[in-house]
């Protein structure tokens, strides 16, 4: 796409046309949302106060942005130095991901200008959502600081500040892991308060742990998936160091993901056994649960494991988007599909066109921002002036 652009210099590329249409539709829905209220563009109701703007934009967005903390922890804490080149793309993706989560929240909450209230004005410390808000707020700041050196190298002349930030790498990485552990798990903990509304196959006291574990392999899978895509579209931007290590990285991440997914699976089964909920497996929801767990955890986990063992990169690259879809399915199940399962079908929620447009709008903005940044700033390559730097 971008190579086409470079060739003919025209702005009329397939990517730009599609993106343009989505952006225009998004602007129309935005105006409606902020002049006529949530009810004018969403299918939300009193029984279904949270729709895909929470289920997709927030829950999936945060889980899929987990590549930032997983990659930087692997590189700086666990000592996988070879994968240093993968840290910047992962941090950038995470930063954009979180920024967009916050952006999308402005659509969903009734009075977005009060979003700082829980942090600065009146703290509802008994609320899991308070924990989510505080962690996301701090973590977004941390990610911004982690991303900043790339922007400073691009503009030049900030060597002093860049030096300070680079020195803080270790601290920021540890901060990132703590904050991610807390808010990734608290997104699951949000649903601990609704044992009567969430289907017993999904409701378990382990929800926070499961959300945290799945965020880890979601992050690893996103790095593999995105690495493959980026390799295709931004290959000309990548330096030798990146290209030399990127296959190794994909295999290492496949191995990690396979292990964590196996642990996650054990957790899922443990949840069923502890509460003796096996009987639910033979219901309609049970079939759906099996689809999620066997179809989107067991099978991609197997692909990752075999792909790693046989050094079959095709299999690993198949498993990555498969796992990503599985994570999205899980988050949808908890927040929308298995939520309010006892309501009559007429009162169940399905997203409106307006909600889908805004979600696409947010994703499109993310892709455009990513494209803008990686074509200009040193993300896939080390800036020549800072080649020997360890950041």
């Amino acid at each position, binding site marked *: 796409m971008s190579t086409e652009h470079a060739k003919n210099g025209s702005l009329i590329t397939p990517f730009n046309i599609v993106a343009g249409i989505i952006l225009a539709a998004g602007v129309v829905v935005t105006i409606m949302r*902020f*002049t*006529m*209220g*949530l*009810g*004018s563009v*969403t299918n*939300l*109701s*009193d*029984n279904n*106060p*949270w729709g895909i703007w929470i289920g997709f934009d927030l829950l999936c967005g945060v889980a899929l942005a987990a590549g930032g903390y997983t990659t930087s*922890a692997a590189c*700086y*804490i*666990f*000592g996988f130095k070879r994968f240093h080149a993968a840290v910047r793309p992962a941090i950038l993706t995470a930063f954009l991901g979180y920024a967009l989560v916050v952006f999308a929240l402005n659509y*969903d*909450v*009734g*009075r*977005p200008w009060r*979003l700082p*209230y*829980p942090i600065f*004005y*009146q*703290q*509802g*410390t*008994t*609320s*899991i*959502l*308070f*924990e989510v*808000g*505080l962690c996301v707020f701090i973590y977004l700041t941390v990610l911004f600081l982690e991303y900043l050196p790339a922007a400073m190298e691009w503009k030049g002349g900030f060597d002093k500040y860049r030096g300070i930030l680079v020195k*803080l790498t*270790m*601290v920021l990485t*540890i*901060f990132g*892991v*703590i904050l991610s*552990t*807390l808010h990734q798990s*608290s997104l699951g*903990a*949000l649903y*601990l*308060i*609704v*044992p*009567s*509304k969430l289907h017993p196959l999904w409701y378990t*006291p382990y929800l*926070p742990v499961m959300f945290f574990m799945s965020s880890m392999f979601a992050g690893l899978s996103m790095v593999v998936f995105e690495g493959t895509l980026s390799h295709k579209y931004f290959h000309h931007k990548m330096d030798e160091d990146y290209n030399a290590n990127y296959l190794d990285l994909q295999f290492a991440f496949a191995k990690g993901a396979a292990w964590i997914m196996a642990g996650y699976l054990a957790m899922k089964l443990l949840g069923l056994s502890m509460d003796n909920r096996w009987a639910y497996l033979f219901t309609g929801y049970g079939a759906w649960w099996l689809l999620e767990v066997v179809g989107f955890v067991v099978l991609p986990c197997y692909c990752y494991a075999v792909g790693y063992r046989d050094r079959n990169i095709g299999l690993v690259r198949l498993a990555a988007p498969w796992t990503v879809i599985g994570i999205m399915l899980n988050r949808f199940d908890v927040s929308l599909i298995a939520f309010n399962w006892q309501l009559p079908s007429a009162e169940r929620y399905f997203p409106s066109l307006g909600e889908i447009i805004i979600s696409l709008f947010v994703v499109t903005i993310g892709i455009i921002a990513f494209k803008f940044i990686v074509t200009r700033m040193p993300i896939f390559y080390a800036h020549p002036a800072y080649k020997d730097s360890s950041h």
Partner: protein
Amino acid sequence: MKRRHFLGLLGAAGVSLTTGVSAKAASGADVAGMPNVGGVLFDASRCIGCRKCEAACNKVNDLPQPAKPFDDLTVMDTARRTDAASYTVVNKYQPKPGENPVFRKIQCNHCMEPACASACFVKAFKKTETGAVVYDASVCVGCRYCMVACPFNIPAYEYHKALAPRVMKCTLCHPRLLEGKLPGCVEACPKEALQFGKRRELINIAWDRVTASPDKYVQHVYGEHEMGGTSWLYIAPKPSFSAIGMDEHLGTTSAPELTSGALAAVPAVAGIWPVLLTGIYAISKRKDKIAEDEKKAAVEAAIAKASADAEAKLAEELSKAEVAGKRRIEVEVKKALEAAAKEQEGGEDA
């Protein structure tokens, strides 16, 4: 930043996160201990479905007029829930075919330990001594987690307000209670199906009625323990509460208790992770260093061995060369001697 300084900061962050989030505070136990907390007892066997309570509620709360008037009883043919324009609704149920229908009033149950209050991240909800759970629109962000959290599906939202939407629910007529008046619905009820009083006393009244007529009533006071107890209490004619649309599987655990474990994990995570991660970092660094040292030692040893070998070889070569040189000299000497001897012989011959 020094590592110690950083850990200190982190600890502070953890503590500030959890201030007042001890399991007790989170479970609102202080509220449950309110000795004179108010409440309302609803007796479904007395309710005749006249909708007078709905009309009164609409009036005292200045809510918009509904499409159909309150004396139109046909609206009860379909089940309704509370919404932004109605804080209370009465539904009609037919538990036993052929017998008279049973009516049930729905409104906020004013939990002793409210899910909405524990879920709210700006403390917009508060349980008060009057029994009412009140809402403060001036801090509400409009996240609607209260609506997600409420096990009774009560809070409603002004989805069609663009700039200042509010969460709408029954207030137990908190302002009227403060003036010494009864809640609007209780005052309007013509059949004494509703009774306001101290919750403790209402529980006694409810049990008296239930135990006095075991054939008539379900032997249970709904709200005494559900979700940790509610200020609204219900008694109902047989066969069951679920026959009049009430969830009998809510359990007795209060909403704050459901999440207090997860909140309690926060300081643990904030405390353990830095130690663990720094440890892992140190170990991997040490491993690297050991590997490096071993490599260095191995290289040194190899070099040492190589040079020793080289020296030995040199010495050998040298000694070999020496032997060869001696031999050559010997041979040369021999040759010279022989040549000299021959010459001598020849001279003698000549």
